């Protein structure tokens, strides 16, 4: 399959809606000055695939929502969100919660012509909701569909976060076994 494009809404340093396509490019580079938002873009892609927020340089899902400024008051009011909510959210859709931020990934499977839309929202209550082509699914089914595409979130064998590359070579022999166990 191929990643065709992305749409971010209020994700980290991206205010409002930001959309872009990858066109037919097989090798795409993201460039820009320090602090411009390059790693935040990688965080957006990792987030929509289901990677936990602790790998995205933040303590809670709320940190991933665009913020104009952080006043110290804001800091105290934050409820430490329950990470666990990320994984066992159930299907019933309580429409009462507004979507504070989301990321959509447009991905075309090898056998198809139209892209599948993977989406992950952050709601005002701190929950995270997964959708495929607009229909809400639970995390387990979401990651199953990704696994069919060889997108292995647990192994993360296709993501290298900033500053991590050397660690791949210096990981312990046990860690290497665990990685291989994930992909087998």
């Amino acid at each position, binding site marked *: 399959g191929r990643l065709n494009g992305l749409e971010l809404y209020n994700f980290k340093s991206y205010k409002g809606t930001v959309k872009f396509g*990858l066109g037919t490019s097989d090798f795409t580079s993201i460039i820009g000055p320090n602090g411009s938002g390059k790693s935040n873009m990688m965080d957006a892609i990792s987030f929509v695939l289901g990677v936990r927020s602790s790998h995205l340089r933040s303590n809670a899902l709320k940190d991933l929502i665009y913020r104009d400024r952080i006043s110290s008051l804001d800091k105290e009011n934050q409820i430490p969100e329950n990470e666990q909510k990320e994984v066992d959210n159930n299907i019933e859709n309580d429409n009462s919660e507004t979507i504070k931020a989301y990321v959509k990934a447009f991905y075309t499977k090898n056998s198809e012509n139209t892209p599948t839309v993977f989406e992950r929202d952050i709601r005002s209550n701190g929950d995270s909701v997964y959708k495929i082509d607009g229909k809400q699914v639970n995390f387990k089914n979401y990651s199953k569909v990704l696994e069919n595409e060889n997108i292995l979130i647990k192994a993360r064998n296709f993501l290298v976060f900033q500053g991590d590359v*050397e660690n791949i070579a210096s990981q312990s022999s046990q860690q290497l076994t665990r990685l291989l166990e994930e992909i087998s």
Partner: protein
Amino acid sequence: RRELFIKAFEHAQEHIDVIYKELTKDPHYNVALGGGSASLTLEDEDEPYLAGIRYHATPPLKRFKEMQYLSGGEKTVAALALLFAINSYQQSPFFILDEIDAALDISNVEKIARYIKKYSKINSQFIVISLKNTMFEKSDALIGVFRQQNLNSSRVLTLDLSGYS
């Protein structure tokens, strides 16, 4: 369980040396001699998933195989070889790599960029964040990220490079 593990391990073991050689050989010399050598070995043949896996890599013209003797740049190249070898077992559709070239000198950036360019056409899509023009000038397209100060927000511009030679 043991079957699956062994299958994945043997795949990575077969590929690691070829990939490491390709990442380290000097593109100007066509001699097969070029490139270093790398290997993966099981600590316990009988119950492999309970023990560890050792990774050794020796850069071209060097003599040590332990990872502790590698320099920063040498370790980066060895790490990328391992990543690509392990990934090739269940080839993911795309890679996202954030400033993997930070510790590399210009000749190693060149080698990695060539490898990515070549395999992006054959295997997976590559999305690479880089500050070095030796890396990004080889890509098919650029995503320029900048800060729009009046909005206090990040914005993107895309540029298709395929039209340029």
